[in-house]
């Protein structure tokens, strides 16, 4: 890198940024709770794996599913139908750009449906709230399986 680094008169801006980011790291580590895998989590993971096979996908690793989705679906079931999450979700059905080139595409039907399958198994009471959103999408099979 360059003389622009810490040798500049902007040290305190760098220090401020470091402190804020470290604060977030500490907050994240304190709040992070590894999902405890139990029989119920494994059973739900098996249901999801079966659904994947039925949909023509390779059977995913159930241990991995259990450790991410636990018994309650984790982040997926956390208010999936809220206006804001819906807005972010729509922005994420996009191309491979990380910054200004991000643009919506015609998403893969089965990949987008995967979320509904997770919700159906882990938090079925929230399924109807996102069903309309999924039904309204124009999709295609763009992922080779």
């Amino acid at each position, binding site marked *: *890198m*360059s*003389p*622009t*680094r810490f040798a500049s008169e*902007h040290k305190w801006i760098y220090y401020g*940024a470091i402190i804020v980011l470290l604060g*977030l*790291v500490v*907050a*994240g*580590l304190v*709040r*992070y709770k590894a999902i405890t895998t139990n029989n119920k989590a494994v059973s739900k993971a098996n249901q999801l794996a079966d659904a*994947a096979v039925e*949909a023509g*996908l*390779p059977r*995913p*690793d159930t241990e*991995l*599913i259990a*450790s991410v989705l636990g018994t309650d679906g*984790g*982040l997926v079931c*956390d*208010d999936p139908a*809220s*206006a*804001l999450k819906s*807005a*972010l*979700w*729509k*922005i*994420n*059905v*996009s*191309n*491979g*750009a*990380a*910054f*200004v*080139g*991000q*643009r919506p595409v*015609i998403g*893969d039907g089965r*990949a*987008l449906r*995967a*979320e509904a399958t*997770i919700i159906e198994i882990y938090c079925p009471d929230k399924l109807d709230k*996102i069903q309309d959103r999924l039904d309204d*999408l*124009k999709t*295609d*099979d763009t992922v*080779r399986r």
Partner: protein
Amino acid sequence: MSSMDMPADAPRQSARATSATVPAAPRLTWLTLALMTTASVASLRAAPTMAVYGLACVFLYLVPAIVFLLPTALVSAELASGWNGGVYRWVSEGLSKPLGFLAVWCQFAMTIFYYPSLLAFVASTIAYIIDPALASSGLYTAIVIVVLYWTGVWVSSRGTKALAGLSSWGLVIGTLVPGTLLVVLGMVFLAQGNPSAAPMTASHLFPAWTGLASLVLIVNNFLSYSGMEMNAVHVSSLKDPAKEYPKSMFLAMGLVLLIFILPALAISWVVPADQTSLTAGVMQAFDAFFSYFDIGWMTPIAAVMLISASLAGMLTWLAGPSKGLLEISRSEGYLPPYLQQLNRFGIQQNILVTQGIVTTVIALGYAFIPNVSNVYWIFSTITTQVYLIVYLLMFVAAVKLRKNQPDHPRGYRVPALTLVCVVGFLASAAAMVIGFVPPSQFGSNSVLLYVVIIGCGLGALGLLIPWAFLKFRKPSWQLEAAREEEGA
């Protein structure tokens, strides 16, 4: 710098800078500029989205690299090694000054709508770290967008040096380190004898062909490399722009390719495509990845890294296009004097503040009318359409400059420039045409309605507003220094 390397009109430029009381540009190394360029184009944010395509993500990034990244990078390397100032200067010299203004306006205007969506993503990632329930709060999202944007403006207003350091470090901490970790862990996963979650056979190198949807996916991916030329506006900060800028561009090109392809591939090895949820977003994919290795606690750290990379990218975008807009406006009087004012660090503070007011209004939409945020995705299509105008102009200008000013000193010359420009122009034109195809989000609504919305947005933002600036500008808007120079 040897006299041969010095652009013929460089002394004129420096005279202009002095007389307009612009502080001397701070020095940047070519490595810093390469990192800034990479930070403004690539991050890991897109990796989980592309991991869904498995091995085909290599194809989806390589084809656009050949037809769009390569022409963009090579052409901007030649132009920046011969002319200071970035895209406005290239188009001004090659085509005309009003078109130069149009080019830099389009580069600038598209970012106005981009910041709210980028910062909304950052807000949701911060929420993941401190309290996921916050992600559903419009007020929280609006506050984060406003606070981060104005902090970015404040940092940018401290000068190029401050943001060059932050954006370079943001790239290293937020993208290069976690990206390397993902790739190494992915290789460990395969080395342990685990089968890849996504099939890795030769037939899976190509995405499924379903006609229009596949074409939309492939062509829209050209835009993944948007912004490679943007940091050329800082070329005068290099010690020897003619030699150093091309070097910086080639390094950035390599880094961008590696950052886009390898982490996406690594995620596709470990995380099954059917287990990623777009609502839970990027963090869920990272959580699944790290959980496999029993280092789930890395997920919040990765989240902080992603935040730093996103903010680093935002800083480069705050500083680049607005600087180009300022420079042509100061010399030609295209913007009102208020927007031409500089702060004591030589930064276009008033342009950034004006842009910030629009960003704040959009952010307030998240807080008070969250349902409206559901259509914000349309902005991303309109803004990318507007950005493509820049590329169309740039490729035409490059050919014209080679024809009209063949002896102008350039530190680097693109072999077969016309062919390269034709490929880049056609790729940009194809991306613009494909931009009128309704995506998933538009559902079963009328295609004509979509075309009208995108066409009107493109016309208003990319043509009508810059035309109005040119039409209604006043002679008094041109700085005294620039007028004197014209007279001389």
